[in-house]
């Protein structure tokens, strides 16, 4: 702040800042509206509810932000959630899982994430090695990933009661949902990854100018695959959280339409679809805005169909503010 020269007139400086923080402004507007209108908004429980609901979108949106930073997009996140979510109960409800509960629990956390990682490798390889356009490349798993999950479970809803596993979704630390802390921890880790590591530097460079990055010796393929893998693993984690909250895994529903929410959150948070930017905390901000819009409309009894239109307007407005910043 102090390093800025004072040559620019105050006013442009102010409007510039406003644009830079379009997301924060939108957030403030929504918060003020809610405080004034929505009953019982200023309660710790409201905060807890919103945190628990936003965590999964935020986690997936952060992964999506990395993929978008490379200039790609990942439509398969919802399907990956379904897949990893379907695997976990399969594992801890299996004979092995019931005989060795602790090992079963660990395996139920580990193997679904491995499966998600494989999905990420698959996406990344098609994009980076076969050079297929990301929308189409990830459409493959978008279509068949959920099918695989349903084949594995024969389409059945798997319900269970496993308090240890459910801690992922229902546990609390200092009164706030565990998955909220988890999202923050992941955000810090990814922020570090993007801003302090070589991987992160290459990631942004590839999105900014892929040919230049390659000519400077950047491991373009590996970094791209890495981004898809991280996105998939985070989606897998989000899938586990959803299953944990519900004490049930529903392969048909888990992560349904998540790709749209995650992309919208990432873009509202400041990601550029052409790549080169990875605002991790922006993704969280975007997810929070989308969540709050949903909450506001629901809590005030706005009908579903009107809520859709409101959501459309807000996404357009938020992106327009972001966009104005670039000109």
């Amino acid at each position, binding site marked *: 702040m102090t390093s800025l020269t004072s040559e620019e007139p105050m006013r442009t400086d102010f409007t510039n800042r406003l644009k830079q923080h379009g997301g924060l402004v939108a957030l403030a507007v929504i918060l003020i509206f809610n405080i004034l209108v929505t009953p019982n*908004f200023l309660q710790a429980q409201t905060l807890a509810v919103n945190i*628990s*609901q936003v965590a999964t979108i935020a986690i997936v949106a952060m992964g999506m932000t990395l993929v978008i930073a490379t200039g790609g997009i990942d439509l398969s996140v919802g399907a990956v959630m379904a897949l990893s979510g379907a695997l976990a109960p399969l594992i801890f409800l299996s004979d092995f899982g019931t005989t060795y509960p602790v090992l079963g629990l660990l395996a139920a956390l580990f193997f679904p994430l491995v499966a998600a990682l494989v999905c990420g490798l698959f996406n990344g390889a098609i994009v980076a090695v076969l050079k297929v356009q990301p929308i189409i490349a990830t459409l493959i798993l978008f279509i068949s990933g959920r099918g695989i999950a349903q084949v594995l479970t024969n389409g*059945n*809803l798997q319900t269970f009661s496993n308090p240890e596993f459910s801690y992922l979704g229902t546990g609390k630390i200092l009164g706030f949902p565990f998955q909220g802390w988890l999202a923050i921890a992941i955000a810090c880790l990814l922020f570090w990854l993007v801003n302090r590591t070589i991987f992160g530097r290459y990631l942004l460079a590839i999105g900014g100018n892929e040919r230049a990055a390659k000519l400077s010796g950047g491991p373009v393929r590996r970094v791209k695959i890495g981004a898809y893998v991280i996105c998939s693993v985070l989606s897998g984690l989000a899938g586990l959280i959803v299953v944990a*909250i519900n004490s049930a895994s*529903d392969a048909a*529903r888990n992560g349904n339409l998540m790709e749209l929410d995650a992309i919208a959150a990432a873009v509202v948070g400041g990601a550029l679809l052409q790549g080169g930017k990875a605002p991790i905390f922006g993704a969280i901000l975007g997810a929070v805005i989308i969540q709050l819009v949903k909450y506001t409309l629901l809590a005030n*009894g706005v009908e*579903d169909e009107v809520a859709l239109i409101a959501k459309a307007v807000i996404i357009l407005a938020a992106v327009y503010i972001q966009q104005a910043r670039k000109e």
Partner: protein
Amino acid sequence: SGLPPLEQKDRYKVGFAQMESNNPWRIAETKSFHDTADSCGWDLIATDAAGSAAKQVADVDSMIAQGIDVLFLPPREEKPLIPAVKKAKAAGIPTFLVDRSVDPNAAKPGEDFVAFLGSDFIDQGRRVAEWTIENFEGDKGVIVQLEGTTGSSPANDRKKGFDDRITQDSRFEIVASQSGDFARDLGRQVMETLLQAHPDVNIVYAHNDEMAIGAIQALELAGRKPGQDVLVVSIDGTRDALQAIIDGKMGVTVESSPFFGPLACETMKRYAAGETIEPWVQVKDRIFTPENAAKHIDEAY
């Protein structure tokens, strides 16, 4: 223009055009048809329209092209499936509608299709309302309603049946009615939110058991005691719901049985034998309450 006849034979090529497979109820229904196939002498072609009425019509078309003898069709929507019914008739294939019907102004049982096999969604909603009116003990019933998929006929009908009956009693007030898309996860999220906005709620009516279970989870997460300070009522009769009733967390669920296979087989055989089938083969929906839940839980899906 009478109904196409059905000859009596050992094996039938039977089409079952399922509308979607994204909830346990539909899955149980499809499974019921598959389970019945062997004993009833069916060579079953089962398709899945993935939630699209248009695709369901196309699926029926491809079954007609394959020359099925009988069609069982749970129409996704009342109106858009009418062409499918008419095409089947034109191709000489007797059609039985299952679990949902089509617009009676455009296609009639006994004329365009043989019969409708199923329950009455409006009546299901009404029965939930009646049980609630009888069994609610407080002075003032503050109701949150979790609706099914916006625009779907069970959602519309279950809402209508319940709303019409419950508003006749001035003790009750519906303070919020929002869609949970028939899904557990969304039911929970919507309930969490509505609970914040309307902390005084003491009755939750969900259009299906999945959302009811989601609501129970939301209540528990918020530190409420479902069954004690909040009454949860719903429709379907799933195993999880019956368990919740046994555990005292839920008040009632009106059965909406997905096990149509045996009924379909029986009705088809009657029709082949030349019987005139009643236009609406009613399914007897039971009602599961704390009194009988334990007895029936093993039959539930």
